[in-house]
């Protein structure tokens, strides 16, 4: 039900990443990718900045919907996987950037209709999330929107259940990949603190996966 721990391992082996993610989320990750792409591309020809593109599962869907994509990831191995996948999409308009999320501050201001952060905010520290979200806001054109999808922490009694299910995966993730991550505690509040108004929220897998659509607030 929670899966980011296993995602660590899959990230260490990019060629296994997509089928692995599909299996551990009971197929829900494809629905999530589809929803992200649908919200990010309201019309063909719009400019999308995708932060943390990974193996390009969302990138591919963005391109198929006719977006001009700037895809950024700090992992050279992930980017190679993504480029392989997108080669089949023909001469798609993609700018690949091997950079960290914090380096979007070097991109032009007000240059994108959408900024996408799919399953990557939970990898970041609190200050990094705040910086990246604030900088994302600066990259958006008037009327642009932010699409965030990530694993979120449940509240109350269900949280205990979530932690119990997560514990062995957390251990496995560390043993296999040497790294761990945590579901986000209060994503909505963080979006608001970074200057966004949340327009829409959608959930999968008993509320452990969430999609937020934000617009720059006044």
């Amino acid at each position, binding site marked *: 039900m929670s899966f980011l721990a296993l995602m660590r391992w899959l990230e*260490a082996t990019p060629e296994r990443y997509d089928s692995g993610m599909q299996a551990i989320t009971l197929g829900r990750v494809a629905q999530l990718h589809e929803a992200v792409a649908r919200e990010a591309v309201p019309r063909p020809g719009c400019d999308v900045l995708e932060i943390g593109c990974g193996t390009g599962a969302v990138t591919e869907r963005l391109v198929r919907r006719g977006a001009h994509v700037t895809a950024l990831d*700090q992992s*050279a*191995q992930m980017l*190679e996987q993504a480029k392989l996948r997108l080669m089949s999409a023909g001469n798609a308009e993609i700018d690949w950037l091997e*950079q*960290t*999320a*914090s*380096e979007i*501050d070097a991109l032009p201001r007000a240059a994108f209709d959408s900024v996408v952060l799919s399953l990557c905010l939970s990898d*970041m*520290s*609190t*200050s*990094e999330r*705040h*910086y*990246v979200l604030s900088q994302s806001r600066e990259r958006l054109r008037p009327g642009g929107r932010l699409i965030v999808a990530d694993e979120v922490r449940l509240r109350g009694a269900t949280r205990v259940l979530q932690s119990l299910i997560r514990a062995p995966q957390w251990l496995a993730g*560390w*043993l296999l990949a*040497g*790294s*761990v991550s945590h579901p986000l505690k209060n994503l909505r509040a963080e979006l608001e603190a970074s200057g966004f108004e949340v327009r829409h929220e959608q959930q999968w897998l008993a509320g452990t996966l969430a999609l937020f659509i934000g617009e720059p607030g006044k």
Partner: protein
Amino acid sequence: MIALLKDVLQTAFRMAPWPTEPGLRTIGNPGRKSPVLLTANYDLTVRRLERALRGLDAWLLVAPAGGINVWCAAAGGHLTTHQVVTVLKTSGIDQLVDHRNLVVPQLAATGVEDLAVFRRARWRVRFGPARAEDIPDYLAAGGKKSDAMRRVTFPLRDRLEVAAAWATPIGILVTVAALLLQPAWTLPLLALSTGLAVTVFTALDRLPGGGRWWIAAAGVLVSLLCVTLSGGGTAAMVACIGAPIGFTALLTFDYAGSTPLEGSGGFDGQDWQITLDAERCIGLYRCWEVCPQACYEKIEGEARVDLAHDERCVRCGACIVQCPRDALYFEDGEGQRIEPETIRRFKLNLLGRRSIQVGDEPEA
């Protein structure tokens, strides 16, 4: 009290990541001219560093390195240029100081590329001392390192810490197994496994012949003892089978990464040796600066280095990563080579191997 408890717990379970929140911290009352230091977000390291820096005024950047210690994180790709750039940009340190000089632990040199940090974040990286305890002297000397500050040693205190880190998980396994099979053996087995861990890490490299024969001899002795003392029965059977398996594991185990003396396997566990292309060397001394084993010697007046002590090399790769002239690389006995760009891009996994096979290296 809580700090002491944390110290004990984190030393015992040292092999697990202990993340602490990355970002900016203050030491004393830092101002606009105070030094800026960086470390990994491994809780034990951060707390020890804060203790070592007591009395100083400095800014401390804690980089997001997966909760892993500096050397392991740098070698494993968790503390690289990416994480340094990230914490420089997101911590707000730009607004707090007038200079752009960052002191990074020397042991991060196997992951962090100083020139790339400058290109991407406009900060100059200086590789500080290998050990936190030397930082006050290093800063007092105006950023000058003595030879001793560069060198990684393996004193008794560190040896006992590594022994504790091994003895704890093994001890837990042994206790669980003994309680299920033969409760009376719990304490003796626990003592045996702890004693072994201490022996292996305090004495192994100091014994003649690398010490592995001594382990073999001890194994035979323990097996015989088990049989004699138990007087036959199931327990004796288990001991007869278990002891040789355990000692064979100890004999053949690869201790790479557990001590600063055992080199990493590099690629495919082949015998890669550090190689210097003397033609390319123009005496920038970056290798000499970051080598934790003092393998290099400066040849004064000739603007070049000599790889004088390659027998000490632990194959951490820091010198290869830092050489702007690409004058260093790994080579095996048959002349096969691993190019510097591969070392920079593909880091070690948990088993001390790189996530790439020789032969499918990318084009540099």
